[in-house]
């Protein structure tokens, strides 16, 4: 795909397809996630996932041209995910009614494991939201029709992160 981020030297703002992009490392990402999870409890999962879906969907809608096949759309989404530093996504197990997406390496999953050790519940709310956004864009679906659940996570000891996708 080739990520062409525009950096405006007058404002020091970097954008990609209308989205302001900021550098942050795993320390901040995982610590912020933990802060919000501790403060909001069960409500945090929905927030973290929906926020990711919102941001990613806006960007992917701009990046993926209309008329692009779902397969190519997923390829672009996976390439972007990797280039932005979030890890890898394998969309090959996905169809128009849903399926499974595997992340052999997830920034959020690995970061949590490295910083805080194993946890009981999956850690990849951001990737879950990103996957949902990719499905919406690839199949031209409204957000209400897509549900993503992380069924296993490296932060819980699994060998890879696995997302179950349901299209209503």
């Amino acid at each position: 795909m080739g990520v062409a981020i525009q950096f405006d030297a007058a404002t020091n703002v970097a954008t990609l397809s209308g989205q302001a992009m900021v550098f942050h490392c795993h320390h901040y990402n995982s610590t912020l996630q933990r802060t919000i999870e501790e403060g909001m409890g069960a409500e945090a999962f929905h927030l973290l996932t929906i926020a990711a879906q919102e941001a990613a969907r806006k960007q992917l809608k701009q990046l993926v041209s209309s008329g692009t096949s779902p397969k190519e759309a997923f390829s672009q989404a996976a390439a972007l995910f990797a280039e932005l530093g979030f890890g890898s996504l394998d969309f090959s197990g996905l169809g128009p009614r849903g399926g499974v997406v595997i992340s052999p390496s997830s920034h959020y999953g690995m970061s949590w494991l490295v910083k805080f050790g194993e946890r009981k519940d999956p850690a990849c709310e951001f990737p879950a939201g990103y996957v949902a956004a990719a499905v919406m864009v690839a199949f031209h679906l409204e957000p209400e029709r897509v549900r993503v659940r992380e069924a296993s996570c490296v932060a819980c000891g699994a060998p890879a992160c696995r997302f179950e996708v349901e299209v209503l």
Partner: protein
Amino acid sequence: MVLSYPVATSRDCFGGEVLIEVTLPRGIERADLERVRGAASLEVLDGFPRPFFRIDVPGRFLLTGLLLTTSVRVTVRQVHRDRAFEVAQEAARELMGEA
């Protein structure tokens, strides 16, 4: 006898969990960079006040350093995490032409 260079480890945000700094017997020359096997990209940013290089060997390591200095940082890829020191030494030996 396999050569072994002095090392120190740390973690940072710019590469991976195991970042190993290897002390080399001499300063790094530009010609040394070409010896690293399997490099997908080799960048030398010599417009900087101190020329900086980065060599990416996918699936093995990322090497970074400053030309003419005697240390190189080896960011070992996750897949080799369990033999990180060995991989770092391999990288250093390739750089020094002793592999």
